[in-house]
């Protein structure tokens, strides 16, 4: 299985939760209060509620529906609020995926050798933004190439999230000024308009 870029480190600070798509799998990506990043099946094993609607309490992610808590270490259930005195067995847990961060980008993959790190990004780049385009990767790459961005070096990472939807993560030359970054952000919109039209 391949590592997929699902967003920027900056966009999932401690205590926040987001949803991501990885090879057609609905996933929740979240960071504990102490900073541990996790990626799991986006489904509470109790009654199937999307965990991406949940909330972080310390080192646990809690489901919004009934408040079941799952720990950052292995996704094991640590609290069932309707039975507050019970210590749940460690057999009750979420399905965990692999997650990693490099150069400000969050990567997730469903399975694979734990030693294999996500792809390295060319040095000297800063994460700019991630956004969604309702088109396929090939068409976006083509549209972006036809509309070169002159002021600074850009690098684009793609994560296909459905057959006609792609999450694009954009990195920019670390030397770029604020104005150049804003221009690059607008360029993303131009490409999207072009490709979706």
């Amino acid at each position, binding site marked *: 299985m391949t590592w997929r870029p699902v967003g920027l480190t900056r966009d999932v600070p401690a205590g926040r939760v987001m949803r991501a798509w990885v090879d057609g799998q609905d996933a929740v990506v979240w960071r504990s209060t102490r900073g541990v990043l996790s990626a799991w099946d986006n489904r509470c094993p109790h009654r199937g509620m999307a965990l991406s609607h949940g909330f972080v309490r310390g080192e646990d992610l809690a489901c919004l529906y009934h408040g079941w808590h799952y720990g950052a270490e292995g996704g094991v259930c640590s609290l*069932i609020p309707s*039975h507050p005195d*019970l*210590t*749940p*067995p*460690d*057999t*009750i847990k979420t399905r965990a995926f692999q997650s990693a961060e490099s150069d400000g980008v969050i990567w997730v993959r469903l399975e694979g050798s734990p030693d294999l790190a996500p792809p390295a990004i060319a040095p000297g780049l800063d994460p700019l933004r991630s956004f969604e385009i309702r088109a396929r990767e090939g068409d976006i790459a083509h549209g972006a190439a036809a509309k070169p961005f002159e002021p600074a070096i850009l690098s684009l990472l793609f994560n296909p999230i459905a057959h006609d939807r792609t999450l694009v993560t954009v990195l920019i030359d670390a030397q770029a000024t604020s104005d150049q970054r804003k221009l690059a952000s607008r360029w993303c919109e131009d490409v999207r308009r072009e490709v979706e039209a």
Partner: protein
Amino acid sequence: MEVREIRLEGRLGSDSLPVWVRHRAGLLNLSGWLDRADAEHARIVVAGPGPMIEAMEVSCSLGPADVMVEQISSSPLWLDDIPQGFSIR
């Protein structure tokens, strides 16, 4: 730690029942065993924390898709030597 006997009655003839019961016991981390007397009767002995045994009963009352549990009852057992793990007898 409690030990309880759960008795099921109904249309239990399907092959899926033992596999399903063992999977559920594993998920709830309960030790014990399943005795199936015949296509209409089954007896499950489980050991573990009270709420997880109750969860086992709740799940068994619904059972796998091709089984229809008509009656379910349970009672405490005073057994000491429940081997680790869940087996089909």
